[in-house]
């Protein structure tokens, strides 16, 4: 394999990769949701308390606690709030302020609205592909 061929292959792949990346940055699967400061703050609460060490969103995150993608639909706001206030036998009480709790619940509501993480709801095809 000549050096020029290797460089050409590398450059073509790099060009494709950068094109694909910039396409993903600019063309979003859904239009941006309306500005929701509470949900945006809630996302920061999620990160600041490292919730993903135990919980998942769309199956991504930790394994000690349940996936919370559809938690807003599955439980009432009041139940989520009470979990956040008192913690559980495993989850500590993080002493979140009322504002932080409210923002976090708003974030979970936004996540819930994007779709379902329940694998039972997926259609599975014989060619190995799936559809939500």
């Amino acid at each position, binding site marked *: 394999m000549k050096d020029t061929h290797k460089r050409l292959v590398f450059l073509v792949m790099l060009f494709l990769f950068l094109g694909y990346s910039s396409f993903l940055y600019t063309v979003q699967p859904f239009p941006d949701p309306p500005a929701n400061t509470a949900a945006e703050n809630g996302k920061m609460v999620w990160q600041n308390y*490292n919730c993903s060490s135990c919980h998942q969103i769309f199956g991504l995150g930790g394994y000690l606690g349940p996936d919370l993608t559809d938690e807003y639909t599955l439980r009432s706001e009041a139940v989520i709030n009470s979990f956040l206030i008192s913690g559980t036998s495993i989850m500590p009480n993080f002493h979140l302020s009322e504002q932080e709790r409210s923002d976090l619940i708003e974030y979970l509501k936004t996540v819930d609205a994007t779709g379902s993480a329940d694998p039972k709801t997926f259609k599975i095809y014989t060619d190995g592909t799936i559809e939500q």
Partner: protein
Amino acid sequence: MEQSNNKSLHTSRAFIIVALSLLAFGLFFGIVGTLQYLFPGYLKDNLSFEKVRPLHVSAVVFWIIFAAMGSVLTYVQQYNNKEIAFPFLQKVQYYLFSVSVVTILVSYFFSVFGGREYWEFNPIFALPIILAWILFIINFFNTQTSYKNQPVYVWMWMSGLLFFLFTFIESYLWVFPYFRNNVVNDMTIQWKSYGSMVGAWNMLIYGCSLYLMEKISGDNKYSFAPIAFILFFTSLFNLMFNWGHHIYTLPTHQYIKHISYTVSMTELFIIGRIIWKWRASVSEARKHYHISAYRFLMYADVWVFLNLGLAILMSIPAINVFTHGTHITVAHTMGTTIGINSMLLLAFVVDILMDKGRKLKAVWLNRAVLTVNISLLIFWICLIITGIIKAKWQMSVNPIPFSMMMASMHPYFIVFFISGLSMMIGFFIIIYKLLFTKHHI
């Protein structure tokens, strides 16, 4: 080049010493985390799981990065037979990285987070890491004497260096509201960057592995052979486009999933070649078995086969629906980071630290390496079994509560703990022997 008197090589060895310390630290917190699975609520008030997990994960991720940096910095000097271009920049890189990592780990104890999974630290700490990596790139490209007709491992090092920088920066795009406000797109970019980043550090590690194999065998034919470059470009193609299996269940663009599924099948070519070369690998193993570093390479080969098989299965969306979000994903991660990355990195560490007349007692090394690998196999199987339990639970029409499902895994968590503990002991023996074996000259 006189290796022993080269100060730059001393600095690259310093990277490896920090790396081994991080491995020991990460293993210890891995065991603490396992105890929290075994005894739910253990240390809940003082050192709860949201602190323990990043202490474990960040320490082992930085073990990989530090050891890879130390190995590449050493081998690029050996390969070019010259000292590093800018020793001062190498020292700055070392101190920037070391101080950042220590600060990050301390910050976790005080619950200072703010980042994402795997990079849970405050994003401000990403800046010195980026800067240190740029210094690494400058030093590497200035130490490399020629860019014409280079062996495949030089291509791998160069690609790994550049793609790590790109993907690390990409993983911080979320700091801009444009990227983070759309939940689904934000997660797509997050896992795009993570998937490619792992591919980038694997490029550095596999590059070192090929260099070491060439050093052991004294035969450089493979490094220039067309098949080596075909495999390199296949891996690079996967680094760039095969990250979608992380997000098959995310309601994102359908084409991302199709591209990833198609690209992942090119890995069949790699696994096919491993099977094809199996007999030759066994005879090669017999020939070099007496070399300590080679033994680690040999174990890594077995783990490449097992994990690549698992990865290919998980890349099929119809199977991924079952395995996603379960401990099968953890099995794959553990198999890759411990079985492949750590075994390869330890091979480089043995080669680099033991080149000054220091000799390891083979009997201890053999026992420890065997303990690590048998324990890892039990650990890996255990994770796959718990993954199957969770997959069945996820697919159940009337699932029992999450806590009951976790309780049903308890017997496996016991095995998980015991095998994890014996793996840690095995690693501790290896680390102790590597750090404290005296010079024999």
